[in-house]
């Protein structure tokens, strides 16, 4: 965008951006430094020695996978219906769905709590997966519909002329062509499901069902407020997230560049 020709200008630019990024790095450095205070690496050993730490990870993975599978299936079907099929009252349905985008999750607490208890969902993965998916689908449909609308109609018409029905069009056109936007949805959903705090806090009461966002609180109880160990547990839970992001980073940028959001 900007053109800086002189060497001095470019060095200044580089220094400026480095200086501006430092505050973003600071909390991460403080986290690692704090986790090594006192007993040093022994903090990590103590955290890893706590039985059941794995449970938190496994639970989070199960919940995130469930939410992603549900959101992906439901979104692709709906975005195809909204984008390329005949639908009377299309805009009404679409706005019904979009209004859900504005919904704060606290609003769901009381009704879900009582309903989950009556239906016996309470303290199961479903009690968290269903509302999380419901909250993610509207945004995912919004992104995917715009993307599918951008696919030329001629492709779908050609498929129909060849005797294909809507299902064939879905399997052979929608699924392969929406891959870039699916990557963006995958990542947004993963972040939302992995990082959610309120739903597990309220709906998963027993310790063996809880997720990694509840780990710091769990350790406050375990180590009676020994800050260094709590920070060590924070580092340990942050590492998989950073690794996952670094692995998916390429895919994510391509998804955004595919025109996900304008």
């Amino acid at each position, binding site marked *: *965008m*900007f*053109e*800086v020709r002189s060497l001095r200008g*470019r060095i200044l630019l*580089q220094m400026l*951006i480095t200086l501006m*990024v430092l*505050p*973003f*790095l*600071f*909390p991460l450095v*403080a986290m690692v430094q*704090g986790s090594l205070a006192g007993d040093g690496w022994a903090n990590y050993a103590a955290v890893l020695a706590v039985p059941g730490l794995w449970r938190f990870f496994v639970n989070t993975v199960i919940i995130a996978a469930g939410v992603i599978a549900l959101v992906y*299936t*439901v979104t692709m*079907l*709906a975005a195809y219906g*909204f984008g390329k*099929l*005949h*639908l009377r009252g299309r805009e009404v*349905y679409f706005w019904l769905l979009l*209004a859900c985008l*504005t*919904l*704060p999750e*606290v*609003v*769901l*607490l*009381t*009704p879900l709590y009582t309903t989950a208890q009556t239906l016996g969902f309470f303290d199961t993965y479903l009690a968290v997966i269903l509302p999380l998916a*419901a*909250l993610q689908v509207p945004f995912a449909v919004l992104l995917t519909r715009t993307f599918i*609308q*951008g696919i030329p*109609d001629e492709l779908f*018409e050609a498929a129909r002329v060849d005797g294909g*029905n*809507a299902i064939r069009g879905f399997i052979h056109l929608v699924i392969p062509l929406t891959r870039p936007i699916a990557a963006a949805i995958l990542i947004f959903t993963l972040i939302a499901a992995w*990082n959610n*705090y309120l739903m597990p806090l309220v709906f998963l009461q027993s310790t063996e069902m809880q997720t*990694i*966002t509840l*780990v*710091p609180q769990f350790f406050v109880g375990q180590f009676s407020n020994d*800050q260094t160990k*709590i920070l060590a547990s*924070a580092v340990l839970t942050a590492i998989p*997230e*950073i690794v996952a*992001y*670094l692995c998916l980073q390429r895919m994510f*940028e391509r998804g*955004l560049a595919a*025109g996900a*959001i*304008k």
Partner: protein
Amino acid sequence: MTATSIAQIERQRETVGGARGGRRSRRLRPHGLPWILPALVLCVGLIYYCIAYTAVISTWNWDGIDPDPERVGLGNYLRISKDPIFWKTIGHTVAFFVVTFVIQTALGLFFAVLLHSRVRLAVVYKVLLFIPVVLAPAIMAPVFRRIFAPDGQFNWLLEHIGLGSLTQPWIGQESTALPVIMAITVWQWTGLTFVLYFAAMGQIDQSVIEAARIDGAANSSILRHVIWPGVRGTTLAMAILSAIGALKTFDVPYLVTGGGPNYATEFLGTYIYRKTITQSHVGYGAALSIILLVLALVMALILQIRGGEKEIR
């Protein structure tokens, strides 16, 4: 910036809009209703059911257990209108939205422009900026509590750069607790604003910028007349997302300050949680939830309509 290049941008916008609007041979298409049904059942079913349920509860004086709650009509809403803490949370939400949105937009634009300007090691900066977005606020909360503690790293840093007179208990006093919450939010979400701006800027036609530069436009005027209008859609989307995000704010104040001290960082979300779960005033919490929902919808509509108007003009 010349008139030609402005016309060029306008023409581009028109072609993009035109391609999207094209619809034909509708009667040949298969029916879409069965396809959207699963999404409708999941979202509309679950969410609208919950909203209706909450609306009903909001007319009760209920502790969450009593099988025969007292019907109070709009009594809860009347009490809320006279509740000073409720008005405090509204004030916090507005201030929080304005401050975080302005700072994130400025920083996001700044980073996006610089990283489009052939800076070395651009990937490293990108990754560093985006890592906060992927980290759970719930995981980072204890870290920030530690950093902003009276003997924490932030005060340590201030002392070591010669600003020792500024050290204070950041979380523990009313005047600085809210700014701390804002700072954490800016830290967390600037990466997303940046990435979206970065993607949007990649779609601005390079030849327009080249043309403007040949006409002798300075960097600042290219930023104002080409880049800023070119990313308007992103700015608008971010405004809607931040406004709704501000209304939804829960994790950070709940975990870092607990809404305190003396309600200084209480938001609608944390207040609803406090009323519903901690104090078992479930009816009152439900009424607060309905107000929150209406505010979020109105906010989205206003921003959507205002954005639409500007698009036409």
